[in-house]
């Protein structure tokens, strides 16, 4: 009951955020985004044809009407059809979102789990050589551009001059074998790029927790190191860790995979968004922008509820 009330309150509080985000992005879309009229009409259209197409696209309506329409679409989750392909937006999202999720999820999970393990190791050996080695490598990982990592991995794993074990481009997930075939190299690239940032962040959180009195108490009662690091250190710094992980989900789910998808030729939501931006396909953009904002509000709610689960001192009031 408490949980339900709290969730409702949080969701209501999220409405201004959604309104703000959609208003600003819709303003940009309408007044500064590409206009599809001439793309659709071809050469030498008559003024009547232009007016007709603009009416079809809804460009002739005043801004307020169009924005209200957008909000109605967001509330009903019905964004109409893509202006460039005619495919219903819901079908487009239903087709591309699972691909993106399947593409990014392994890298995201591995990137965080490995980072936490490395951070625990580094923090445990603070300012001795394992710490210095891990932190040094983290800086190296952070300093190399994502694009270079992708290209380098493609050369190493997917080209005739390298291992030539995986495809450079494409996607398929009809069997586990096929899925692994296509997902491995992108995953390695994602892990490589996120590992440095994640490890540095988690290490600083963990080192901070290690200076706490209760950790000293646990040591004074003979707690073995592995148990100490998990029960007294990691369990106590879950709040910042959970926050970081959950809030990065909306980002990577929608836009984070854009670069990976375009370099590996994968038909995910990032690629679809990129195409929609290039041609000014407003129904698709409206859907992506609106849903990202909604996802953020949901992530915020989810994080707050998780806090309650990881720290008994937090109450949902």
């Amino acid at each position, binding site marked *: 009951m408490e949980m339900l009330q709290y969730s409702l309150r949080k969701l209501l509080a999220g409405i201004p955020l959604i309104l703000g985000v959609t208003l600003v992005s819709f303003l940009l879309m309408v007044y500064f985004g590409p206009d599809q009229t001439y793309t659709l009409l071809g050469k030498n259209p008559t003024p009547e044809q232009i007016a007709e197409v603009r009416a079809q696209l809804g460009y002739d309506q005043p801004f307020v009407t169009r924005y209200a329409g957008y909000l109605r679409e967001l509330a009903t989750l019905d964004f109409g059809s893509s202006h460039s392909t005619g495919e219903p937006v819901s079908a487009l999202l239903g087709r591309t979102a699972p691909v993106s999720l399947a593409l990014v999820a392994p890298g995201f999970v591995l990137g965080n789990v490995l980072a936490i393990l490395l951070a625990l190791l580094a923090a445990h050996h603070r300012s001795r050589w394992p710490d210095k080695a891990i932190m040094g490598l983290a800086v190296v990982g952070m300093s190399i551009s994502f694009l270079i990592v992708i290209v380098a991995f493609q050369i190493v794993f997917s080209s005739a001059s390298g291992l030539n074990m995986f495809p450079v481009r494409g996607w398929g997930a009809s069997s586990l074998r096929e899925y692994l075939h296509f997902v491995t190299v992108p995953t390695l690239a994602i892990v490589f790029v996120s590992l440095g940032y994640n490890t540095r962040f988690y290490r600083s959180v963990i080192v901070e927790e290690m200076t706490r009195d209760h950790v000293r*108490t646990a*040591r004074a009662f*003979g707690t*073995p*190191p592995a148990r100490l690091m998990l*029960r007294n250190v990691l369990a*106590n710094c879950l709040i910042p860790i959970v926050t970081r992980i959950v809030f990065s989900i909306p980002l990577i789910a929608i836009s984070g995979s854009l670069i990976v998808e375009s370099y590996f030729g994968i038909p995910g939501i990032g690629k679809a968004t990129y195409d929609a931006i290039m041609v000014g396909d407003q129904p698709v953009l409206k859907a992506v922008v609106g849903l990202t904002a909604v996802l953020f509000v949901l992530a915020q709610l989810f994080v707050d509820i998780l806090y309650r689960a990881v720290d*008994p001192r937090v109450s949902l009031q």
Partner: protein
Amino acid sequence: MSAPLLSVRDLVIEFTTEQGVVRAVDGISFDVFPNETVGLVGESGCGKTVTGLSILGLVPRPPGRIAGGRIEFEGRDLVGLDESELRAIRGRDIAMIFQEPMTALNPVFTVGSQMTDVLRRYKGLSRRQARAAAIELLARVGIPAPDRRVDEYPHQLSGGMRQRVVIAMALSCDPKLIVADEPTTALDVTTQAQVLEQLVRLQEEFRMAMILVTHDLGVIAEACDRAMVMYCGRIVEQAPIEELFARPRHPYSAGLLASIPARVDDERRELPVIPGMVPDLLHLPPGCRFADRCGRRLARCDVEQPGLAPAGESRVACFNPVETPR
């Protein structure tokens, strides 16, 4: 007298700071015998807490390190043992009670979970046995409704309760020695008295030795058999408790005792204070460290460091100790 349980010899503990290496503890020696309570008194920064931590190998390293001396527990030198050897002693042979009950317990686990963790590790109890043992221990340290409290989180308990939980944890494996670092300082006055009383009673009941680290002479008077007065990383006086209070021999001890407000004294005279400041550990005088603040200073005090020498029933590090007629 029987063999000492703990025997500290010429212990030196150094800390590396940005300004240089600081000797927080400079060559102290003392013994603790079975079943006795020894007080370690002195003002903040005199090295008493670090001494307590060093016995369990808990001096934070870096920046701290034990630079010399021995800490023999039952004849075995603890200095230089590695972490796993120290771990086998911590909590089981030697337990520690900390100054800050508010932060000394892990906030995300229940009291019972933290207690059973220790009990199961050292006593090999099953989950259920450990829980029963934890409840019994909580009852023995005077926590009401222990079967309910055992499932509560530290933030649901008061400071006094939390300190009792830490005490219960410390007792749980029948240690031979307890190091209590300012166990009552963070509590309010009424709770202080109760917790201290309990601690003294349990120390007798469990037949343990205890090192009571405190700046509070009242606590020492109530709980200890013997006391050591520390000043600037050195022990300046060691004496049985009645002797220390009746006939303090070091001018610093005498000063400390004189600055306790007397209850019966209704004249509202100003409390005597020890003039001057504790010297900076980075710039210690070549002679006696108390010389600058001492009313009984001799020429010799500025050039030579006094060592502990027997004086009556006490041992005192002073060239011109206070003489109190019997």
